[in-house]
């Protein structure tokens, strides 16, 4: 994840906040001052800057592949957002749930993430002021989550959550630890049957795709070299035949003209061979890398999409 992307995500959250409740969108001292009169008329949020910090921590943790910490930070941002800000609230909710879902690899150790996501969704859906439009997708999400949790013999969420620290720590600084580290969480008994779920993968899709494109480019270059070599070689053949067959007398093998033709022909052959090897290797590498990148989509994209799409419809 680049700094630009992180900045864009923060900017998105800020813009959403501003769009829904402009009076509360005091992300900086300057903005706070300009919105002071409006703030006095509504219940102020706990501390918006703290929410922004939580969200930024979540984004950073996600970029580093620390999904548990990312989920906790997003959840913190969610809990710091009131129902009066449905846009940001939904964004933080979905970001946290998505991180929890990806943090679960189907093992007993990570099952607690599903429980946290379940609790969060239930909390969200318990709001009586929630409109059916805002609730619909989260209900579907909760149903899928509960199907995933319904594994025979697995420890219940009550057991797991009762033995773990609260799901939403307050990550005041980037050094804040996650609530569910291996040292703190007692290991539940292994499940009899574990539903296989995709393991979280590092965000390597883009480099793979770029490498694949470079490979294909090399392959195309190789093909171009190959074609050029064919043309050069055939032209040398033609010149040689014309020189030796169409003249009145026999040609002499060590004639400088024939030597030039031979040099040109051998150069063409070299181009063909180099081009063939380059094309073969380039295409092989390119296709392989692109296939790998297609099979392993980056976690950032899958995390952002639901929130972005959902929010677009919410406003």
């Amino acid at each position, binding site marked *: 994840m680049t700094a630009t992307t992180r900045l864009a995500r923060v900017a998105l959250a800020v813009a959403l906040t501003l769009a829904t409740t402009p009076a509360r969108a005091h992300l900086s001292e300057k903005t706070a001052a300009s919105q002071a009169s409006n703030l006095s008329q509504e219940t102020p949020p706990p501390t918006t800057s703290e929410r922004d910090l939580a969200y930024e921590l979540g984004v950073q943790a996600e970029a580093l592949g620390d999904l548990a910490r990312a989920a906790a930070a997003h959840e913190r941002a969610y809990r710091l957002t009131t129902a009066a800000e449905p846009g940001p609230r939904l964004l933080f909710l979905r970001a946290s749930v998505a991180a929890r879902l990806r943090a679960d690899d189907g093992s007993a150790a990570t099952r607690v993430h599903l429980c946290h996501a379940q609790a969060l969704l239930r909390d969200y859906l318990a709001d009586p002021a929630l409109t059916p439009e805002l609730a619909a997708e989260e209900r579907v999400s909760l149903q899928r989550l509960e199907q995933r949790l319904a594994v025979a013999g697995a420890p219940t969420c009550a057991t797991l959550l009762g033995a773990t620290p609260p799901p939403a720590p307050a990550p005041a600084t980037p050094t804040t630890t996650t609530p569910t580290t291996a040292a703190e969480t007692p290991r539940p008994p292994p499940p009899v049957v574990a539903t296989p779920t995709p393991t979280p993968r590092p965000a390597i899709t883009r480099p793979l795709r770029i490498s694949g494109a470079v490979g294909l480019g090399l392959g195309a270059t*190789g093909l171009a070299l190959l074609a050029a070599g064919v043309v050069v070689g055939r032209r040398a053949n033609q010149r040689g035949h014309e020189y030796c067959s169409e003249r009145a007398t026999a040609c002499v*093998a060590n004639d400088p003209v024939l030597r030039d033709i031979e040099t040109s022909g051998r150069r063409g052959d070299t181009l063909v061979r180099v081009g063939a090897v380059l*094309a073969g290797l380039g295409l092989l590498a390119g296709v392989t890398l692109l296939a790998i990148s297609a099979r392993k989509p980056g976690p950032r994209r899958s995390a952002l999409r639901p929130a972005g799409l959902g929010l677009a419809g919410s406003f």
Partner: protein
Amino acid sequence: MRGAAPAIQLALMTTALVIGALLACYRDDYLLGALCYRDADCGDDQCCAGVRCRPQPDDCLRTAGVDEPTPFLPAYQPCDRDEQCLVHGQPVCAHWAGATVGFCTDFCVGDPTRNCELHSDGFPVDYTPRTCATVDGQSVCAIDCSADPACPPEMQCHQGVCVPSAAP
């Protein structure tokens, strides 16, 4: 599908390499029949047999001693097309003066008695009367019968040049 992907990749690479090998298209067969001094003057898979570039290996086997004149068996053999001669390293199937049957030979260059091939039969091994005959505007080696109408077996004298009497 996962199993098919490597196969497709391998097929792509193999195809590229095979195409490359097949299209490594420079062929120096235009040097066949050219006047030469050493093998290195000729192309790949060619040798300098006598004074002409010939294809290896069969037409490089000149069994006589180094300085001893040796006939070249495919020379002056009946033919219809150049390709029949080229396989033995002679670039021309010469149809002399309207003769229906051609004969394999080389383009002439310099002294024909030194640069044109001996015939394998009908003459003393070191003497074949040779000349340069013009066929289709090109000078080719031929067996001279302008002074003496004698020709090798299965050849006949036709306007001063021995030509095959029977089709190949």
